[in-house]
């Protein structure tokens, strides 16, 4: 397996790992958003959805392990690339002309990714933790998941963090989506313009979709 180690430690291999784990997370986000839309249909719809997931717990646990690994690989590899890439230019330019040759989304992947990571810790620390491990209000045990979510969405600071993180997630996805195709070697004048547009549409849907829930529940003042 030496060849695999060499591959994953090469510049192209590291890109490939970012693209592979990123693509998996892109697909995960679609499923996550579709599931979360049940929040808009009231407590029965959302609690029923979470209960359904709970009924296939062993399978969900396996998916969670894969998902967690994808996140960890994406984050560690991303940080490693960022450190290595910083070292490749020890003396910075006095005048930075990068706004004239590249998009802000492509240049801020580390920043947008870091903020999404901080959000992720908060997100798991509240919802995942309370759904699965620590249940202080004794709600998850009664399958009142909707009540947990809407409780948190009644805090303005929590909603604010969500909205900011989702905007940056959109930035991250806008570059990441088309970047994954490029890394996999799929760049062709026939379909690359379409992929770039699709990536932007995808990023907007994800950012607006995920941000709409905290905003909606905050505006209507917590639970319906």
């Amino acid at each position, binding site marked *: 397996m030496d060849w*695999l180690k060499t591959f994953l430690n090469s510049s192209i291999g590291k890109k490939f790992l970012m693209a592979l784990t990123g693509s998996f997370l892109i697909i995960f986000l679609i499923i996550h958003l579709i599931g979360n839309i049940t929040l808009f249909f009231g407590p029965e719809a959302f609690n029923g959805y979470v209960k359904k997931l709970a009924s296939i717990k062993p399978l969900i646990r396996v998916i969670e392990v894969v998902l967690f690994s994808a996140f960890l690989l994406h984050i560690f590899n991303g940080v490693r690339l960022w450190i290595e890439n910083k070292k490749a230019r020890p003396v910075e330019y006095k005048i930075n002309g990068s706004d004239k040759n590249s998009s802000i989304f492509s240049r801020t992947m580390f920043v947008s990714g870091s903020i999404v990571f901080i959000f992720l810790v908060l997100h798991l620390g509240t919802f995942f933790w309370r759904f699965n491990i620590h249940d202080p209000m004794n709600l998850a045990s009664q399958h009142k998941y909707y009540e947990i979510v809407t409780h948190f969405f009644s805090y303005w600071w929590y909603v604010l963090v969500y909205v900011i993180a989702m905007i940056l997630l959109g930035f991250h996805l806008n570059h990441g989506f088309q970047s994954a195709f*490029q890394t996999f070697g799929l760049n062709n004048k026939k379909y690359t313009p379409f992929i770039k547009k699709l990536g932007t549409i995808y990023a907007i849907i994800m950012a607006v979709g995920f941000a709409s829930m905290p905003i909606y529940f905050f505006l209507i003042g917590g639970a319906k």
Partner: protein
Amino acid sequence: MESKKLNLKLKIWRQKNSNSVGSFVDYNVTVSPDASFLEMLDELNNNLESQGLEPIAFESDCREGICGTCGLVINGQPHGPIPRIATCQLHMRNFKDGDTIWVEPFRAKAFPVIKDLMVDRSAFDKILQAGGYISSNVGGAPDANSILIPKEVASEAFDAASCIGCGACVAACKNASAMLFVSAKISHLGLLPQGQPERYRRVERMIKVMDELGFGSCTNTYACEAECPKGISVKFIARMNRDYLAAKLKASKSEVA
């Protein structure tokens, strides 16, 4: 027709040698808008020399955009603000009277500054030595057209081969990655029949050396394509990624461990 001369303030990077710390030095120049950027520096150097001062070291050769020797970062952009040209093709008419112009060398760990605006780009030579060639036995020239190459393939190979190896891609990349250069070299050989025997060995060897020389990794910002004086497309990077992956997945034992 006599054009009005421009008064410009130049802030030029001066560095004694690769071990010393450099800094910007201010120069005020009056220059014709018809002069090229390098001609302006020539004039400035003449003045410096006549005053017994050390002239500014910078590189140039053909001064018509085909050799890839010149390369300055002007106001943060390799080869200056005009797309698809080398520094030598940049004319002062693109600047306004009273402008301040910052002139820096290409900056990358793999391109150490030799002096002032001159950098050592021999890292590119090392990458080419690793695989940027085809091995063929010498002998009589083969008949023209004895190897059929579709026009689109020949054109694409030619697009890749138009890389002049100036290093602007490395200078423009926020990660100082050399992937546009390397992918252009890999593609111009790999697209043609003559390049097939060594196609996968080539990509493995060249990437290995590129990584060892301290270039960064590509994060697909495409700044390289935007700043390339020849407009080399990032589709060649995608092609290189494909070839590298194929080389690693091939059943035969990888030659480059």
